[in-house]
Structure formats: C-alpha cells, structure tokens
C-alpha cells in the first residue's frame, strides 16, 4: 500500500470512513447471500439499490415533501430562536420568566404532542412544520443565548470605557462573539428539524395524510416492502448528512478567518 497517501491527513479523513463503509456493505451483502436471508427480513445492499432505482420517482417526490417541511421548520426555528435569544439577553426578567417554558418545550416528547397539534391545526403541512420547529428550536435559543453572554470581559470593559451604547455593544461585540455558538446550534438544529419532520409525518401518516418519506416507510412496513423501507431510510440518512455538511460549510465560511474551531 502507498504509505504517502496514508500520511496525508486530508486523504485519510475521506478514505478511512469510506473504506470502512465499503467493507461493512460487503460483509452485509455477503452475509445476506451466504445465509440466504429473506428479503422481507433484511434486504441485501444490492436489493436496496435496485429498489432505489426502481422507485426513484416515488421516493424523490416524497423526499421533496419531507425536505420542504424540514426547511420551513428549520428557517422558522432559526428566526424564532434568535429572536427569543435576543429578547432573553436584553432583559433578565424576561429570561427568568420565559426560559423554564423553553425547557418544558424541549423536554416534552414531540411524539406525545404531535397528534394534538395535528388535530388542532387544520393544514397538515403547517401542523407538521410546527412539530418540527418545536424540536429544532431549543438548541438555537440556548446556544445563541450562551454566545451572546460569552463576551470577553476585557473587551466589554473597553467598550464601556469608550462609552459605547447598548446597540453598539450588541452589534459590534455580542453578535460577533455569539456567532461560533450560533453556528454550533445551527448544526444540531438542522438535524433535529429533519428528525422532527419525520416524526410529524409518522404521526400524521397514521391519519392517512400527506406523503413524505416517513409515510413511505410506514406504508412499506405495512406492505412488508422492506427494501423500499430501507431505500427511504437511506434517503433520509443522506439528507441528514447533507444538511450537516451544508451547515459545517456555512460555519467554515463565516468563521474560517478567525475562529479556532474552523482552523485547519
């Protein structure tokens, strides 16, 4: 083996997980064939790929439904989360009185309240967006608050010494200081928005509405169409990875010049 490639950290970072993935898939494929596992129990990777190709149109249109909900929920969570964080940071009273309820929202299992939301809100898409937003909201709020408060005390003194007003401190000190934390929240939240969308679709899907990827999984489960179930799962996973990658790139683009976390 060429050891020069192994020594380059960038190459290893791509090749090592890729090699492991291929190996796992090969073992999976081999076990399925050797043990003659029935396709409705565990389909082989080749079966899943075949289904992905065969059901491509159906699955992609479902993916689009799920993506739409994820995207709307994520945007809503960012807007609401940032607004809430600013509000909380401006006034102690506001934070003290509202933050416990933000935690209540966070710890309430979304599966438990999703049926209620879906009953209360007439438009099913909107209902699912609300569910996913609730899941994605908290990391944005808590991380942005943490960031807005994580201001170098020396710099704060410098601003005070130069008689900076509240607005100048916010715009020129608190917001830039909060960015690394905000982007951290964004990464967690993007994944949670997808999970929230899938959970909401599951709940709504049992009621027979809409046709997102989770609905396809449900249906495939009922029909014992396990390869399609896996194919839908693969699409969701890749969507999650894609979201994370986009957020990581966004973070790198915004902080790459100065923040330690994005130095390579």
């Amino acid at each position, binding site marked *: 083996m060429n050891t020069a490639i192994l020594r380059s950290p960038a190459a290893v970072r791509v090749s090592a997980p890729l090699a492991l993935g291929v190996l796992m898939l090969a073992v999976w494929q081999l076990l399925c064939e050797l043990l003659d596992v029935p396709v409705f129990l565990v389909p082989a990777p080749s079966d899943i790929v075949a289904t992905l190709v065969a059901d491509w149109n159906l699955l992609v249109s479902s993916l689009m439904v799920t993506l739409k909900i994820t995207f709307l929920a994520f945007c809503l969570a960012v807007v609401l989360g940032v607004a809430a964080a600013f509000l909380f940071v401006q006034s102690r009273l506001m934070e003290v009185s509202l933050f416990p309820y933000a935690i209540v929202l966070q710890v309430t299992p979304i599966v438990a309240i999703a049926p209620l939301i879906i009953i209360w809100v007439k438009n099913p898409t909107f209902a699912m967006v609300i569910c996913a937003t609730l899941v994605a909201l908290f990391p944005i709020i808590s991380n942005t608050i943490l960031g807005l408060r994580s201001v170098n005390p020396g710099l704060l003194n410098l601003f005070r010494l130069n*008689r900076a007003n509240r607005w100048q401190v916010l715009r*020129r000190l608190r917001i830039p200081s909060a960015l690394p934390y905000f982007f951290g929240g964004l990464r967690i939240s993007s994944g949670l928005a997808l999970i929230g969308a899938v959970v909401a679709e599951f709940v709504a899907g049992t009621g027979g509405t809409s046709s997102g990827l989770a609905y396809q999984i449900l249906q495939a489960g009922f029909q014992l169409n396990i390869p399609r179930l896996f194919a839908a799962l693969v699409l969701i996973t890749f969507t999650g990875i894609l979201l994370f990658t986009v957020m990581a790139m966004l973070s790198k683009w915004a902080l790459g010049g100065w923040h330690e976390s994005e130095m390579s």
Partner: protein
Amino acid sequence: MKRELEMMMPGPHAGPLCGREVVIQAQGVEKTYPNGTHALDRADVAIRKGEFVSLLGPSGCGKSTLLKMFAGLEQPSSGTIAMQAEAERSDGRDMAMVFQEATLMPWARVTENVRLPLDLAHVPRSQSQPRIDEALEMVGLSQFGNCYPRELSGGMQMRASIARALAVRPSVLLMDEPFGALDEFTRNRLDTDLHRLWEQRGFTVVFVTHSIYEAVFLSSRVVVMAARPGRVIADVAIDGPAQRGDDFRVSSEFIDYCRVLSEHLVRANRGEREAVH
C-alpha cells in the same frame, strides 16, 4: 464617585514635575468588595500632567483596582477621585486604557481593532484612517494592518492594543500590566519603545506593574504599594535620563533605584509578617 472639576491641590510628593497641574487626584480612596476583601485602604495619589507614574506592588495590593477606578470602570467604596475635566472632544474620550491582555476582537483585522474606539465615537472613516496609520506606525505594525490578531505574536498583539489606545490621541494613558504576559526580552523591547513614545508625545501615563525593573526603567515616579490591605507605602521619583535605553538598564543609577524600591517592598513585607505573628 465625584469627578470634580475644581482646581486641585498639588500632591505631597516633590519631584521635577511637581509644579505641573494635577490630572488625577485620588483622596482617601478605599475599596472593599461585597465579599469583604479589603482591596485598597485609604490611598492618596496625585498624577500630574506629563508624568509617567508606575503603580508598583505585589498581587493584591490594589494597584489594578486603583487604575480601574481612574478609568471609571470601578467605583471607590469611600474617598474621592477627581479628574481634571476631560477636554471637550467630539472624537471620543481624552483617556485610553491598555489592558493586561491584548483584548483584541478576534474576528476583526488589526486595522479594524485599532479603529474601534474611533468608530464608537462616530469619527468618520476619512478622518480615522490617517490616525490609524499613524498609530500603527508608532508601534511598528504598519505592515500588519491586514492581519487577524491570531496571526500575530503575543508582543505584536500587545503593540496592536497600544496602537488602539494611541489612535484615540489621549492625553492620559492608563496601562494595566500590559506586558505582564510577555517574556522578558520582548517586554524590554516594548518598554524601550513605550518610553520613547511617551518622551516624544508627552502624554500622561499611569502604568501598573509588578516588575521593579520595569517600573524603574519607565517611570518618572513610582508609587510603591503593599498588600493585605492594599495601601501606598512609598512614592519615589526616578530622576533618570530623559532618553532611556539599554545603557540605562545597566547603569549603577538604575540598580540603585531598584534597590530603593526593593527595600520599601521588603520592609512592608516584614511588617506584615510581624503583624501576623
């Protein structure tokens, strides 16, 4: 705190600059923190125009506290600090401070960091740019305006921090152990440059340090302080050459001043120990 505008009495300390007007006068200033720490006990200090005064003492002697009170960042528990009225300026304050750390904004390039106090005072860009160039020139960072702080060494970051203070063109410069985190050789170089700047520009400097050598090298007067409780124990005029460099550092005059200051500190320390036993 009362920042009185009245003419202030000259302080009790004789020295070559004693005829000049007093810029900052602390009278009977005490600081006790809510947790009971007695940081400073009845300090009387007068800073005259154009002086380079060092506040020298061990940790916990209240020297940084006193400086922060001069800056208005902390309030005395009792006593008064009277500042000469700051000149009316539309471009911000007549006072600048350099902190223990460089405290640069990591997301902003050096130029933008230096521009900050001017921006906060709404100085238009067209006017701030020449002042920034001048300040960077003075500290020898002209080539590094486009760097991010992390790209600079510790000493260069401190230079940028000083440039930020100089861009304000302050008549009073407060410095809180600015070179404490640097190695001795970098510190000596920065001390030499700082003294040259002070000598050329003639602003007033109040400089907090725990290095006897640094205090002697830089100052026209050293206020010696002791800890537990923080208090002023001596006030020593340093009658060194106007222009100071490495020659001054190795002169017998320099060593003599160091010994005088050490003696004050040792005596205070001994008294403290006797008080405990």
